């Protein structure tokens, strides 16, 4: 990156470090922090969407919808996360390719499953074979996001269901006495008051989500854990910047990053809980 990095074997001390920390691989490492942030920011709205859908389904007056809500939350919370993280991307990938195959290559005679292979026509592959690598990476990342959202959405559904039930009935009855419709009661009284009860559970879920982001590494997404392992490994003289096993150092950097992120999140959620609980007799409340 700098001019003096042209011949690394001549460098020493601080100049070696300035070149080492700015190699292409290290730039990839720094960019992968953005991948982690992107995952966190992208999943939050989807998790809340799935959470609300699940919670409202469980409170529905129609029995099948209630069963669906109960089934979603129990199943996803009862089955180990790792199974969803490994299953959902593969199943969705194959499912999407299968549907595109049916649509685009309906004249394809051979079966899609041939022995061990899953083969669809070239036009149906998702992403296409000719797409640049970043398309493949983004697609894999989006599938991973969906897997995270499904798993954490179930936990959020449970929290929101509990929070919705914790709002005092008296509040809702008073609203009805005022002549509000069901929709108005929900939007103006139930939902705003629910947040005071939901935030402790949701902030806990956020902390767990932060801790779970290295699962991206399991799914082959090049996240910070991948690059830390890759960069830390022993590099022999074949590489431009040889060094011994520095994995411990790189993983300590990750540790500091995650602790920092958790600390900032905790401050934020404490603030938010205090604001939402003004006048409430809840733990975060300030009566």
């Amino acid at each position, binding site marked *: 990156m700098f001019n003096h990095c042209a011949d690394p074997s001549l460098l020493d001390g601080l100049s070696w470090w300035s070149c080492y920390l700015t*190699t*292409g*691989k290290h*730039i*990839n490492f720094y960019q992968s922090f953005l991948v982690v942030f992107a995952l966190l920011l992208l999943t939050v709205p989807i998790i809340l969407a799935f959470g609300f859908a699940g919670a409202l389904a469980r409170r529905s007056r129609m029995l099948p919808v209630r069963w669906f809500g109960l089934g979603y939350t129990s199943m996803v919370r009862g089955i180990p996360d790792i199974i969803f993280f490994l299953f959902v991307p*593969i199943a969705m*990938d*194959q499912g999407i*390719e299968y549907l595109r195959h049916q649509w*685009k290559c309906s004249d394809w005679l051979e079966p899609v499953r*041939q*022995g*061990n*292979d*899953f*083969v*669809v*026509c*070239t*036009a149906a*592959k*998702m*992403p*296409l*074979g*000719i*797409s*640049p*690598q*970043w*398309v*493949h990476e*983004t*697609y894999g990342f*989006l599938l991973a996001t969906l897997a995270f959202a499904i798993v954490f959405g179930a936990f959020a559904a449970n929290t929101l269901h509990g929070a919705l039930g914790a709002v005092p009935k008296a509040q809702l009855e008073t609203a009805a006495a005022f002549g509000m419709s069901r929709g108005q009661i929900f939007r103006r009284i139930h939902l705003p008051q629910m947040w005071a009860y939901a935030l402790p559970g949701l902030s806990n879920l956020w902390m767990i989500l932060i801790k779970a982001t290295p699962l991206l590494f399991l799914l*082959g997404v090049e996240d910070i854990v991948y690059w830390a*392992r*890759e960069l830390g*490994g*022993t590099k*022999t*003289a*074949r*590489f*431009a*910047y*040889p060094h011994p*096993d520095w994995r411990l150092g790189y993983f300590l950097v990750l540790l500091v990053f995650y602790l920092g992120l958790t600390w900032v999140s905790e401050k934020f959620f404490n603030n938010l809980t205090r604001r939402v609980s003004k006048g409430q007799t809840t733990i975060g409340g300030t009566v």
Partner: protein
Amino acid sequence: MKLTTLLTTAALATGIASASMADAIRMGTEGAYPPYNFVNDAGEVDGFEREVGDALCERAELECTWVTNDWDSIIPNLVSGNYDTIIAGMSITDERDEVIDFTSEYFPPDPSTYVALAGYDGDLSGAIVAAQTSTIQASYIASSGATLVEFATPEETVAAVRNGEADAVLADDAFLADIVNASNGELAFTGEPVSIGGGIGMGIRESDTELKDKMNAAIASIKADGTLTALIAKWFDGRMVKY
């Protein structure tokens, strides 16, 4: 921003005719096994197999993109179509041949050697030996009297010897030679080399016979005009292999 670009690309791509697609393939490699394949400091796939792969793609008139994948899932991901070939120092074995197909070999069988801390002279047939999971070395140790300790990456197998978790590591000679040289006398070769497995070939899906034929023709071509011999000499300390 990337999401909208992705959606636009997907929308456009659905309109593209299939005629141009046969020319592009994705080459899958591990990226953690110098000198065969590794990721260099610029973040690109590099190594003997990168140059062989690029030469083969040129001969077969294909456009190749390189992707890396962890060793553990390299075969399942080939089979489900994440990439089209495996070119990762994978020896041709009957067990793997049941699941995928191999092209003809592009590298002769490399003897596997043991490396231990300098001064180790214990009996290797009863020792604790480290190897990478799902390799020919791992199955060799498992079927001998020694105790096998498996690790997901080659780096970890060597680290195990350094910290005393294992007495020795068994891996391809070319990979260990670099490491022994760089260890400043800490590690040393020990015991006798063993010859395991067939040569190294490219892994291809069993249903992809067209690509296999193209690659076999390309491999024959680089053998015939000496390109392969020159590449092997370049990456493996001047080793001369006659093809």
